[in-house]
C-alpha cells in the first residue's frame, strides 16, 4: 500500500533542542518506522535511542532475535562512550548504561506489524476511531517506571519477557500514529473522554503549529512535561 509519513518532535519545556532525548527513524521506501524514548535519568540515552531506531528501520528484529540484534548496537554505544567519561560521576553513570523504549512498525502489503518494549505507543486509526492501541490500551497503564532496553546486557534480564508484538490488517485511508509516552498518555485520556485527539494532531501541519499545540497542551496541564515525538503514517485511499 502507498503511504506517506511525517515526523514531529519537541523537547521538554525548559530544555534546549539538543537536550531532546527521544529519537525517531522513518524509512518510507521500506515502510519501516520507529520511535524511542531515552530515559531521562540515564545519560547518553539520546545516543542509545538513536541507535535503536536506526537499527530497527535498517533491519527490523522479531521479538525472538531482539537479544542478538541488540548486541552490535550495544557495542557501538559502548565504543561511543570511550574516553568521554573522565569525571568520577560520568564513569559511574556510564557503567549504569543508557535505557530507552523502542516501538517499531513495518508495513508489508496490506499488513502492519509492530514490536514494543516500554511505553511508546502505536495507534491505528480507522474510520474515525482507534482500531488498535499497542502496547498500552488505557491511560492508567502509564507509570514512570517502565521496563526499558538497556545498553548494558546485564540490565536486560527482565526485559525479554516483556517484549511484545502485534499485527493486523491495513485498509485504505488508515492512519498509524507512533508516539512517545507523554503524548500517548494524553491521546488515550482524550479518547477515553470521548474526544478525538487525532483531529488536533492532524490540524498541525507545520513544525510551528505542532510546537504551538504542544505548548498549549502543556500550559493547560493536559500534557505532562516530557520530550514529545510523533510519527504519523497515512495510508493512501
Amino acid at each position: 500500500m502507498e503511504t506517506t509519513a511525517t515526523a514531529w518532535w519537541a523537547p521538554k519545556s525548559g530544555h534546549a533542542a539538543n537536550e531532546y532525548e527521544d529519537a525517531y527513524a522513518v524509512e518510507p521506501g521500506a515502510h519501516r518506522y520507529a520511535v524511542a524514548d531515552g530515559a531521562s535519568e540515564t545519560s547518553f540515552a539520546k545516543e542509545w535511542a538513536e541507535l535503536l531506531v536506526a537499527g530497527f528501520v535498517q533491519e527490523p528484529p522479531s521479538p525472538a532475535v531482539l537479544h542478538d540484534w541488540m548486541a552490535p548496537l550495544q557495542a557501538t554505544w559502548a565504543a561511543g562512550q570511550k574516553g568521554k567519561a573522565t569525571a568520577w560521576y560520568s564513569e559511574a553513570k556510564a557503567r549504569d548504561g543508557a535505557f530507552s523504549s523502542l516501538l517499531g512498525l513495518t508495513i508489508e502489503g496490506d499488513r502492519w506489524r509492530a514490536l514494543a518494549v516500554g511505553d511508546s505507543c502505536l495507534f491505528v486509526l480507522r474510520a474515525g476511531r482507534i482500531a488498535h492501541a499497542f502496547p498500552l490500551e488505557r491511560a492508567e497503564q502509564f507509570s514512570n517506571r517502565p521496563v526499558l532496553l538497556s545498553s548494558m546486557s546485564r540490565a536486560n534480564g527482565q526485559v525479554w519477557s516483556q517484549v511484545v508484538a502485534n499485527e493486523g490488517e491495513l485498509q485504505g485511508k488508515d492512519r498509524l500514529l507512533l508516539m512517545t509516552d507523554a503524548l500517548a498518555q494524553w491521546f488515550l485520556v482524550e479518547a477515553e473522554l470521548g474526544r478525538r485527539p487525532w483531529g488536533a494532531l492532524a490540524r498541525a501541519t507545520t513544525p510551528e503549529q505542532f510546537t504551538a499545540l504542544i505548548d498549549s497542551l502543556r500550559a493547560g496541564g493536559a500534557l505532562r512535561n516530557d520530550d514529545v515525538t510523533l510519527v504519523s503514517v497515512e495510508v493512501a485511499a
Partner: protein
Amino acid sequence: MSYEAEISRNNPSAFLFLIDMSGSMTDPYGNGKRKADGVADAINKLLTNLSIKCTKSEGVRDYYDVGVISYGKRVEPALVGELAGVSLASISSVANHPARVEERTKKEDDGAGGIAEVKVKFPIWFDAKAAGSTPMCEALKLAHTTVSEWVGRHPYSFPPIVINITDGEATDGDPMSDAEALRALSTQDGNLLLFNCHISGTSAESILFADHEEGLPDQFAKLLFNMSSQLPEAIRESAAREGFKVSEKSKGFAFNADLVELIRFLDIGTRPSNLR
C-alpha cells in the same frame, strides 16, 4: 495540590542533612561499626547517588542544592575540602569538589550468570569526628536560617527536604518546637519536609516510614517520629511501588534503616525499573 512541582534546573529543590556527631556516636551499632562511621559512609553514599542521579551526558545538572550540618562539639556546615563552610552548594559543585576520591571494589552481576568484581570510585565529602553533646535544637535553628533564605529565592520549587540523623536525645532542650518552626517554612508547592533517622544501639528491627509510634523502642524514637513530616502522596506511592509498607499516616521516619533507601523515592524523571 502540594508536592507536585517539577524539579528542574530553573526550579531546583534542596536537601539539607543534619548529622549528630556527639560523643555517643562513637558507640557501635548493629554490625559493630561505630555509628559515626556508618553515618559518614551513608552521607557520602547519598551525595554520590544524588550526583550520579543528576549526571547527564554533558555533566551534572543542578537539580538540587545540598548541604550538611553537623552538631556535636560545634554546630556548623560540615562538608570538607573546597566546600568547607558552605551551608548549601549546588549538586554540580558538590560532585566536582569531593575532599578526596577513594577506590573500592564492588561485586556486580556480569549479565551472563556470573559475578564480576569492578573497581568503583568512592568520593568523600564528609568525615566522622564524634565529640561533645547533642545540640539538636541549635542544629534545627541553623537549618531554619539556612533554608529560610533558600525558600525566599526559590518560591516555586519543590519544598526542601531536611534529613536529621541522630542516635537520640537532644541535650539543649526539647527539639519539638524548633522542628515545628522548620516544618512551617514553605514554598508555593508545600511545606518543608523534615525526615528523621534514628540510629540506635538496640537490636530492634529496622523501620522505614513508620505510621504510628506504638512499638517504637524508646521515647527518643517516639519524639523523632512525632517531629517528622507526613510523607506526601507522590513519595508514598513511589515507596509503595518499591514494595514498602506505607499508609496515609506514614512519616519520614526511619529507625536503624538504610538511609540510602530514603532518597530513592525522589524522582527527577523516567527511571527504568530495570535500573538498580
